[in-house]
C-alpha cells in the first residue's frame, strides 16, 4: 500500500543522504521525495511517498527513527491529511488548439505561468490523480513535457 511519510530532520550535513541511503541499503522503495526547510531553519521536512506491506512500513518508520538526525516521523493515514503535488506542464500550441488548452487548464485550476508564440507552461497543484487527469487530457493537445514535484503533506487541523 502507498504511504505518505513526513520526516522532520535536523538540518545537518548529509542528512538527505542518510535518509536516502537507508532506503537504498534496505531495499525500500521511494516513489517520490520532497525536501525543504521548516519554520525553524535548523529543521527540514522530508516528505516521501513509499509503498510496502504493514511490516515493511513499520520497519521503515523504526529505521527512520534510528537515524540520529531524525526528529519526528509521521505516517499519514488517509483522510487525516492534505497532500499536494505541483506540476509544470509544457504544451506546444497551434492556433487551432490554444483555446482548448486554456479551457482545459482552467477546469483544473491551472495557471499559465509562461507564454511564447508557440507554447504555454501551465502550473497545476493538487492530488496525484488530478495532475494525472490533466496530463491525460493535454496529451492529445500537444503536451511535450511534465515537471513534477514530490508530494508535500500536512495533517488536518492544528
Amino acid at each position, binding site marked *: 500500500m502507498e504511504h505518505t511519510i513526513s520526516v522532520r530532520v535536523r538540518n545537518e*550535513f*548529509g542528512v538527505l543522504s*542518510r535518509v536516502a541511503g537507508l532506503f537504498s*541499503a534496505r531495499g525500500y522503495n521511494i516513489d517520490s521525495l520532497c525536501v525543504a526547510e521548516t519554520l525553524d531553519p535548523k529543521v527540514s521536512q522530508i516528505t516521501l511517498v513509499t509503498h510496502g506491506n504493514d511490516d515493511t512500513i*513499520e*520497519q521503515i518508520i*523504526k529505521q527512520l527513527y534510528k537515524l*540520529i*538526525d531524525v*526528529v519526528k516521523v509521521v505516517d499519514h493515514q488517509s483522510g487525516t491529511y492534505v497532500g499536494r503535488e505541483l506540476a509544470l506542464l509544457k504544451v506546444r500550441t497551434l492556433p487551432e488548439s490554444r483555446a482548448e488548452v486554456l479551457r482545459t487548464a482552467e477546469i483544473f485550476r491551472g495557471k499559465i505561468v509562461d507564454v511564447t508564440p508557440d507554447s504555454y507552461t501551465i502550473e497545476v497543484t493538487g492530488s496525484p490523480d488530478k495532475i494525472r487527469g490533466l496530463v491525460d487530457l493535454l496529451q492529445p493537445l500537444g503536451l511535450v513535457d511534465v515537471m513534477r514535484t514530490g508530494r508535500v503533506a500536512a495533517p488536518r487541523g492544528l
Partner: protein
Amino acid sequence: MRLTGAEIVVRCLQEEGVELVFGYPGGVVLDLYDAIHRAKFRHILARHEQGGVHMADGYARATGRPGVAIVTSGPGCTNAVTGLATAYTDSIPLVVFTGQVPTQMIGNDAFQEADNMGITRPVTKHNYLVKDVRDLAPTIKEAFYIATTGRPGPVVVDLPKDVGRASTDYHYPREIFLEHYQPRYEGHWGQIKKAMSLVLKARRPVVYFGGGVIISGASEELRRFCEKLGAPVTYTLMGIGGIPGNDRLSLGMLGMHGTYRSNLAVDGADLLIAIGARFDDRVTGKLDEFSTHSKKIHIDIDPTSIRKSVYVDSPIVGDVRNCLQKFLELMENEPKLEGYPERIADWWRQIEEWDREHPIGYAQSPTGPILPQYVIDKVYQLTRGEAVVTTDVGQHQMWAAQYYHSQKARNWITSGGLGTMGFGLPAAVGAQLGRPKDTVVCITSEGSLQMNSQEFATAVEHNVPIKVVLVNNGCLGMVRQWQEIFYDKRYSEVDVSQTPDFVRLAEAYGLQGLRATRVEEVETVLEKGLASARPVLMEFVCAPEENVFPMVPSGEPSRKMLFGHPTQS
C-alpha cells in the same frame, strides 16, 4: 582558554577518561599527532589502520569502555572501514577520528581525499564532519554519548586539517541533551506483566539470549531469571559468556553450528524468551520453519530488531538488565511460580534425550593427526574457561564456540555479525592492553592470521603477552567444508598450504614461537606457551579434513542438522 583543534581533540579525550588510543599517522593528522606528545593517554601505533580499529574494538569488548582510534584521510579511512563495519554489526562503541583534507579543498579530488562521510555512513551508528573548530568539543562529546548509549556502535568524527589548526576558546560541555536521540532503557511495566503471563502458562520454555546481555552487563540478572524458572538456556555466538558455558541450565550455542539439543529445544518450545538477540539468519535457519509452535517474548533496546524477521507476541523495548530486573521483581511476588521447575521436568527429559542422541564431541586418536577441537578443548581445560578468548573466522571460530566454555561476560571476543577474518590478532592486542592482568588467548587459523599478522610487531613493541593458538589446517577450512558437502568436493581456491614457517615468522617479529605436530606434544606446548610472560605463538599442525558438526545447511530449518562424525563425549 584558547586551544587549537588538535589540542581540543586531546583535551576532550582526556575529559572522557580515555586511557588508550590506537592509530596510524599521516599528512592531514600531523597536527593531531603533534598534540599527542603532551597527551595523558597512551597511543598505540598499529601497523595497519584495520588492525588499529580492531584493537580499539577488542579493547572495547574486553573492558566495556569505548575504543578510540585515529586514522588519516583517504587510504587511512578506507583501511579503517572493515574495522568500523565489524564493530557496527556487533554493536561495539568506538569513536574514530578520520583526518580530512582542508575544508576549502573538500570536493576537489585533493591528494588523499576520500568521501569519508559517504564511505563510513553505512558502517557507523553516526558520523560527523566538523567544519568549524567551535563545533569540535561539542561534537566529540556527542560522539562519545551516541557511541556508548542505547544500542552502542562506532561513531566517526571527520576532521579537516584546517580545523585541527584553527583555534578557539575551549570548554568541554558537562551535560548533553539530544532531544531527537532518546534511547529507551526502561522496560514498559505493562508489557513485562503481559510477558510474565506467557511465562507462567508455558510448559516448554526456552531462553535464547545474545550479545545484548553482555553489552548491558546483565549476566547476574539473567542467571537469577533462569534459575527461578529452572528453564533451559541457549545463546548466540555473541552471547557466549553471558552464563557459564557449562552451567547446568546451558544447552550450549544454537544455530548453524549450535548443539542439536539447542536447536531441537527451540524448535519444540512453546515459549521462546529472546533476550538481547536479533533472530539472525545463522540462528533461525529457514525462517518460516523457525520455532513455529512457540509464543515469543523479545527484549531488545533497539526497536528495529523487534519483529524485523520473526513475529513476536510480546515485544519489550528496553535495556536488557533493566527489563530483567523488572521481571525478577514480579517473580518475587508471584505465587504461580511455585513448582515451575517441576512443571517443566518432562521438557528437560526430552531435551536430555536429544542430547543423548547427538551429543557434541570429537574423536581424537592418540596417534592420528591433531584435531583442532582437541587443541581448543585443552586450552579450555588449562585456562579453566577463564581466559579472555579472541577468535578469527572459520572452523576454528566455531570449534572455539563449541569447546571453549567461557565462564564470564566480556571474555569472548569474536566477529559475529560481519565475520571478519583478520580480527583475532589485533582484537587480542587491544583486549590485553585493556586487561593487562588477564590471560588473553587468540584462537586462529593460518588463513585469518595472515590477514593482519603485521600486528605481531605491535604486540612485541609493547610486550603485550598475548597467547596465539594457531590451528594450522593448511586450508581455508570453512570454505573447504562447504565445497566438500555442497559442491561435491570440487575444491576451488582453498588450499593455503603455502604458508610461511609460522614459528620462524613469530620469532622474526620477536615473539616466542612453539610448535606441536603430534598429539602428545599438544599439552606440553600449551603449558609452556600459557606460562610465558611474553607474546607467544603456538602452532598446532592439524588435519585439513576435519569438519565442524553438527551443521544446519544454509536455508534449511534448524532442526535438520548434519552429523558427519562418530561422536564421542
